[in-house]
């Protein structure tokens, strides 16, 4: 009993530090229970996918035919990279309940980054936007 209480206190103090493992500082879905975090990550991915769809359509419109072909090829390879990268990032949680959450967060993050990359390309092409 004498050692039990300090152990609990130490564990409680360590809890926030342990929780940050696998989570990036910029990640928005780190609060609440696991199902809440999962739902939040799903919303994040949906928002990022919508952003990407818009950025893609806007850029595609401004491209010359020869660049359109190359853009489609790059998009296919980007999808494969995203899948493979997020499987690798989630791999330390192999078999754990948090694994799908980590993979989902990664997918949302990489999708946001791609949307920003395509938006920058659009701006390069059209100057002001």
């Amino acid at each position: 009993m004498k050692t039990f209480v300090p152990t609990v206190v130490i564990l409680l103090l360590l809890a926030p530090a342990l929780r940050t493992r696998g989570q990036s500082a910029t990640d928005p879905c780190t609060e609440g229970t696991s199902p809440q975090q999962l739902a939040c990550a799903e919303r994040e991915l949906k928002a990022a996918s919508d952003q990407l769809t818009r950025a893609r359509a806007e850029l595609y419109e401004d491209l010359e035919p020869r660049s359109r072909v190359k853009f489609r090829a790059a998009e296919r390879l980007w999808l494969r990279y995203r899948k493979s990268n997020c499987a690798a990032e989630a791999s330390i949680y192999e078999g754990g309940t948090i694994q799908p959450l980590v993979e989902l967060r990664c997918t949302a993050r990489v999708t946001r980054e791609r949307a920003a990359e395509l938006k920058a390309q659009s701006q390069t092409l059209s100057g002001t936007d």
Partner: protein
Amino acid sequence: MTTRLIFTCALLALLLLPAASAKTQKERPIHPCEGNGSQAEATGCAHREYLAADAELNKVYNRLAGVLNADEKALLKESELAWIKYRDSNCTFESSQYAGGTMRPMIESFCLARVTQARAAELKEQYELRK
């Protein structure tokens, strides 16, 4: 009368031409490599920037691989190969908009450097989480 109409149309077309081509005009931010000197110098500068980013990525990759078990390492390797294909294809695309121009190789190197820097930051974050 017809001559006058043709003349007016031609004048209008000439006036509208710059506006139409403005759509495809490239207005990228100027990179420090382009500050002064020739195109060849700027292209060399861009290429050196890419080489530096690649060297940094190699360092970060090896550091991360060093803290992973065999299964995780296999997944990292697979994702790195997929990333290389995406990077090359993406930068071929980005520079294709300058195809035939003297700036194309420089634009490709800028793209390779930028995407490689982003990948190094991504792997660095993974290393920080796992070490």
